[in-house]
């Protein structure tokens, strides 16, 4: 059952990381000179959303 719980929990995090990557790549394509700054922001944003997915993973394992 726990595995299903993690699968449900990771949907949101997966969507969020996908959206962040989408935004970062389209921003870089439109404005290549902003690449470095956009990449930093992308890494930060995906670290936040990844943490949500990982919280689901750890809670599933512990409980």
């Amino acid at each position, binding site marked *: 059952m726990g595995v299903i719980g993690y699968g449900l929990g990771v949907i949101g995090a997966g969507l969020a990381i996908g959206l962040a990557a989408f935004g970062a790549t389209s921003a870089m394509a439109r404005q290549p000179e902003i690449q470095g700054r956009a990449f*930093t922001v992308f*890494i*930060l944003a995906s*670290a*936040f959303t*990844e*943490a949500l997915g*990982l*919280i689901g*993973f*750890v809670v599933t*394992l*512990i409980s």
Partner: protein
Amino acid sequence: MDAFARLSDEIQELVSEFSSAPVVGNLTFGLTQYSFFLLVAAVVFCIIMAIFVKKQKLVPHGFFVNGVEYLVEYVENDVAKGVVGTGWRKHFPFLATIFFFILINNFIGLIPGMKPGTGAIGCTAALALVTFIYFVYYGCKKHGVIGYLKSLAPAGVSFPMNVFVWIIEVFSLLLRPITLAIRLFCNMFAGHIVMGSFAIMATLFAEPLLEHFSAMNALGALPSIAWLVILLIIYVVELIVAFVQAYVFTVLAAVYIQIAEAEGH
């Protein structure tokens, strides 16, 4: 396929191995495996910095001195100057200490057989609490205690609304250390669990081949090559995560300091 049947038991054992167990003494007073590697990381940190200070010259030579200097300048330019802004010099030592401490802890945990000091919730909670006290202290120092509490609500909101905004802001202030602690802990803990699971899968599939060599067993061991490749890829990802998490923690600490010291919202 009895390998898959045994997998869940093995993973349960792996997870139980990752909970804190005392190495010396007991849980109230003693060393767990995490606090032991925390001490190792602290000693490594001191040694690296001592060698760095001793070797530092006007023109840096060699990989080690240049590497450490690059990281220090990275924290200085990207985090301290970029996020904190004016008055960054006062906060730079704190930010750099947090960054290097977490970085060295994370990398020590990646050496096979060692555990990250930041993989226990106690350690990350302590780090987050120190950060919390630090930025609240500097906020109170800048605005005064009453002024800091007032500055939580944005200026220019009329009476009944600003009480609600203030309550929400206090909640978000109290949530900051919790999210800081949980983010770092979960990343380290989960990363090591995932690496451990793939290592277990690689050994489970290869086990029959090692016990008895036959064509059937050799065929059954083929998936373990794939698990091994995935394990290596995850290891590389973990190398990046170790750096990114140290960076994220430091940047968030810098953002919170900047918000606490800002002149009115």
